[in-house]
C-alpha cells in the first residue's frame, strides 16, 4: 500500500515528529511504500542539519536522513513554510543572499503542489499534527 505522511510539529517541541518517524519506519519495515513525507507548518524544522541535541538524545533530523538514504525516500520541506522559518538550501540561500543554508541531506525544498500530488497518488495520507 502507498502511504504519504504530513508532519506539522517542530521536533524536540512536540512528539508528532517522533511518532511520524516511528510510523514511517514501521510501514517501510512491513514492505509498504512511502511515497513522500511532506513537512509543513513547524514540521519544516525536522530538516535542519544544525539541530544539535545532546549526544544521549535522539537526533530526529539524522534519523530521517538515514531512513531516506536506506529507502530512497522523498522528504519534502515546504519551501514557503520553510523560508519563513529559516529553512534554506544552497540555492535559496544564494537567491536571497542569506549567509548560510541548513537543509539536511535527504531533504528537498519544494512547493505545496507536492503535498497535493501526494494526496492524489497515495492510498493513505496521514497527518501528524501538533
Amino acid at each position, binding site marked *: 500500500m502507498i502511504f504519504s505522511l504530513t508532519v506539522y510539529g517542530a521536533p524536540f517541541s512536540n*512528539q508528532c515528529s517522533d*511518532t511520524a518517524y516511528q*510510523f514511517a*519506519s*514501521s510501514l517501510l519495515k*512491513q514492505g*509498504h511504500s512511502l511515497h513522500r513525507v511532506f513537512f509543513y507548518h513547524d514540521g519544516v524544522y525536522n530538516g535542519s542539519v544544525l539541530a544539535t541535541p545532546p549526544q544521549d538524545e535522539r537526533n530526529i533530523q539524522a534519523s530521517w536522513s538515514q531512513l531516506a538514504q536506506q529507502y530512497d525516500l522523498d522528504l519534502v520541506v515546504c519551501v514557503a513554510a520553510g523560508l519563513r522559518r529559516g529553512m534554506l538550501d544552497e540555492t535559496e540561500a544564494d537567491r536571497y543572499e542569506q549567509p548560510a543554508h541548513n537543509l539536511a541531506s535527504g531533504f528537498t525544498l519544494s512547493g505545496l503542489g507536492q503535498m497535493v500530488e501526494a494526496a492524489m497518488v497515495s492510498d493513505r*495520507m*496521514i497527518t501528524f*499534527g501538533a
Partner: protein
Amino acid sequence: MILHTINRSPFGSSCLQSCLDVAAAGSAIILIEDAVYAALPNTQYTDQIAAALGKHKFYALDPDLKARGIHEATLDGIESVDYDGFVALCTEFSKVVSWY
C-alpha cells in the same frame, strides 16, 4: 470506514469530544501521544468512552502508554497496539482522519 487518530489529552483539549461527536458508528479511534490518558480508568471520561465502545473500536498506542506509566491498567475494551499494529489499522480502514 475511517480510522480516527487523537493525540491530545482529553483533560486539556476538545479533540476527543469533537472526534466522538463526528465519528460515524463503525469507525475506529486510536489514542496516540497525550491522548492515551483517555485510556485511564476512573476518570471523568470513563463512562463516555465505555458508552462509545459500542459504536467504535478503541485502540491505544502501547509505546505511548508505557512512556507515561499507564500501560498496566487501562480501560477494558481499549486494545493496545504497537507501531506495526497502528500501520496495520491504517491499511484496514479506508482512510485516516487526525484530531490534534
